[in-house]
């Protein structure tokens, strides 16, 4: 599950980065508006997924430590 979440996060990051690159290479109204709105949202979602993975990871680690080897 963690690996899949990270894969989704990576894919979303790539989409967001692609939209940012589009605005840099084609400085027209739609690419610029998309990069400053949708791309930011996608990037934030990707980062949120990464944080979720960290949270799950820490919880699992804590549980394992509590239960002992």
């Amino acid at each position: 599950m963690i690996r899949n979440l990270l894969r989704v996060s990576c894919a979303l990051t790539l989409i967001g980065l692609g939209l940012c690159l589009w605005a840099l290479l084609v400085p027209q109204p739609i690419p610029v508006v998309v990069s400053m709105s949708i791309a930011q949202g996608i990037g934030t979602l990707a980062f949120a997924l990464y944080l979720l993975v960290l949270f799950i990871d820490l919880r699992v680690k804590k549980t394992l430590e509590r239960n002992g080897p």
Partner: protein
Amino acid sequence: MTELTWIAIACIAVAATLTLWFLIANPPLNRTTKVLLLLGIAVFPIGAALSTNVVGFETTTQRKFCGGCHVMLPYTDDSADLTSTTLAARHARNPMFGTHSCYKCHANYGMYATLLTKMGGMKHVYYYYLGGYRKMPIETFLAEIHISEPMQNNTCMQCHSTTTPYFLTVPDHKGALTEIRDEKVSCASAGCHGPAHPFSKKARE
């Protein structure tokens, strides 16, 4: 391309390389992988987003960007025309305005000016792409469309303070000083220094 554009592209390249590496190589989820993913998903994308935003904002103040909507081309072409004697063209030849001439005159004035200007800009993008202007012939556009809000004298008064002795030697300036400062008489009106563009029309009531 500016230096910031290259920084944005570099951040995008590094972040894309790291995320693609994870997707393709499928490495074990150890500490190194997680740190590299932190760089690829958070650090470099945030750097890319910040620099892209600044570059994007800078782009939206360029005359070329305004001319990106075909109906604006007569206005931007006139402003860039070195032989034109319109108010817009004469100001655009001043390096203080230069290639940012549209933004310098049409940006709102005041504390939240940048935000208000961008919100107004979004309205125009909406009109263009979803309001039918995109398919409108330029001739129809020039005949039908009016400026959305009256041109503010405050914008002119950022440079022309209305207080210099030279300004006050002009009888019309002296006589209408209060009306000019109170926005009751527009600097860019036909009887004064305008219209700013050859196709200018007053704002709709």
